[in-house]
């Protein structure tokens, strides 16, 4: 794998919060390429969200460098979009205005009003919410709210999507719809996506690669490149075997932590 076809590259990341005796995370490497979904799995508290904040430029690491298109990150990159489990929609704005939120901020690329409108239209269409654009968040279901949050990311034409358990709070059916939507988005927008999840099946279903974090101080303890066609519902047997492998590695990593 070559470093220069990566949109995002992290090298030797170390993480520690003040007052902690040992590193939370050490010596972590990651390459993220265009059009690829990488899932990050690992036990709770291992530092996944912290790592994502570092990659997003929201937080400093004590070690290592993160580069986006070969440039070291300084602060939040305008082409990086982040979504969390909580869609954090602003209740006083319509769906459409929520999607447009922040496009006119000072540190965002300058766009004309017409360009902004076009971006918002494309984003709302992509997530299939054209019929609901004038609704307020209080009238949206959980799935619609999370779609809106994704559209808000897409309106910024992201090169990199960083997703922290975005579907964790949704019911089974909605979640599987959202997984298909994520695949479609990555295909249509040709972005790279990093997906933090607790759901092994979700990771197996959508990712090109799975990275497993564990041990203490956490480092990469497992790494799978998945080369089944997508969607993968027809490959139950292969996925079953992979699932067992992921679980075993996860268990071993957790046992080492104690």
């Amino acid at each position, binding site marked *: 794998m070559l470093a220069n076809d990566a949109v995002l590259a992290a090298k030797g990341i170390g993480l520690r919060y003040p007052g902690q005796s040992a590193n939370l995370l050490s010596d972590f490497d990651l390459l993220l390429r265009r059009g690829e979904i990488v899932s990050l799995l690992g036990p709770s508290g291992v530092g996944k969200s912290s790592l994502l904040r570092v990659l997003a430029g929201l937080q400093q690491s004590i070690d290592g460098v993160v580069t986006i298109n070969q440039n070291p990150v300084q602060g*939040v990159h305008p082409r990086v979009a982040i979504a969390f489990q909580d869609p*954090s929609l602003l209740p006083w704005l*319509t769906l459409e205005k929520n999607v447009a939120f922040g496009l006119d901020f000072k540190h965002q690329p300058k766009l004309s009003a017409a360009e902004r409108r076009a971006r918002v239209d494309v984003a709302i269409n992509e997530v299939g919410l054209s019929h609901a654009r004038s609704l307020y968040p209080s009238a949206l279901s959980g799935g619609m709210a999370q779609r809106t949050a994704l559209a808000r990311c897409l309106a910024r034409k992201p090169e990199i999507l960083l997703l922290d358990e975005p579907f964790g709070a949704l019911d089974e059916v909605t979640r599987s719809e959202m997984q298909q939507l994520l695949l479609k988005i990555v295909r249509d927008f040709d972005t790279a996506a990093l997906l933090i999840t607790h759901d092994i099946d979700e990771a197996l279903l959508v990712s090109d690669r799975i990275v497993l974090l564990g041990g203490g101080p956490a480092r990469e303890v497992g790494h799978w490149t998945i080369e089944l066609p997508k969607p993968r519902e027809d490959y139950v047997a292969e996925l079953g075997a992979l699932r067992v492998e992921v679980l075993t590695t996860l268990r071993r990593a957790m046992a080492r932590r104690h």
Partner: protein
Amino acid sequence: MTLVATAPQRTRDASADVRAGLHPALTRFALALAGLAVLLGLWWIGTDILPPEGSFARKFSPGTAIPTLGSLLIGSDLPVHILVSLKRVLVGLLLALAIGVPVGLAVGSWSKLNEATSPAFQFLRMISPLSWMPLAVMVFGVGDPPIYFLLAFAAVWPILLNTADAVRKLDPSWLRLSQSLAATRWETLRTIIVPGVLSHILTGLRLAIGVIWIVLVPCEMLGVSAGLGYFILDTRDRLAYSELMAVVLLIGFLGFLLDMSARALYQLAAPGSRQPRVS
């Protein structure tokens, strides 16, 4: 009446009404009219049916009060009294906002200040504003100033407490959002903090209007020669009982209008928020 609106309630499922073939707004309107009709019926029974012929209670009948209200509105100086009262309400509200919003913002953003002031505020809040009346007259003299003081004193609490509560309730995920969009401080203030707090301030304002309207009438019964409270005492002194009932009716009606306009303001300035329960 709680001073801080509780978490917004999910609006009732309207589909039942739709299935019954009725527009939900229409159903609500019909029910409201029915409730008012019952009220009017009870008033009528209490003054015209139950009391014997020639009894004192008959002087308060809706049959005379309602026509009297009409003629008072056209042919007397009652409209002037209404305007005087409304002006006092407005001044009282503005004073309460001018004090309540900044203090609320300070108390809400600084927890030490909140801990220091909260018992004092609760203490002051539980003193009926009317009990300050003699004191207010001694300090501010007779006329409008003591009334402004009393009204502002009554209205400041819901505004202050709701503002403080709003700051505390600002969703941390909204701030995380503005951070992830590289918002400047000013952008965060303008697009997240101000609108996020506004709907709560408006809830406080609506509660304040309710409180002020209730306190207004007794306040106007002291040392002034205009306003609805004054007018009520005047009708009593003139033994004009149908006028008295007419003004009572008017006070209820104006209060209703005030609350409705506060609601409309809320809907206008804070769209998307479900109407918080004010109970």
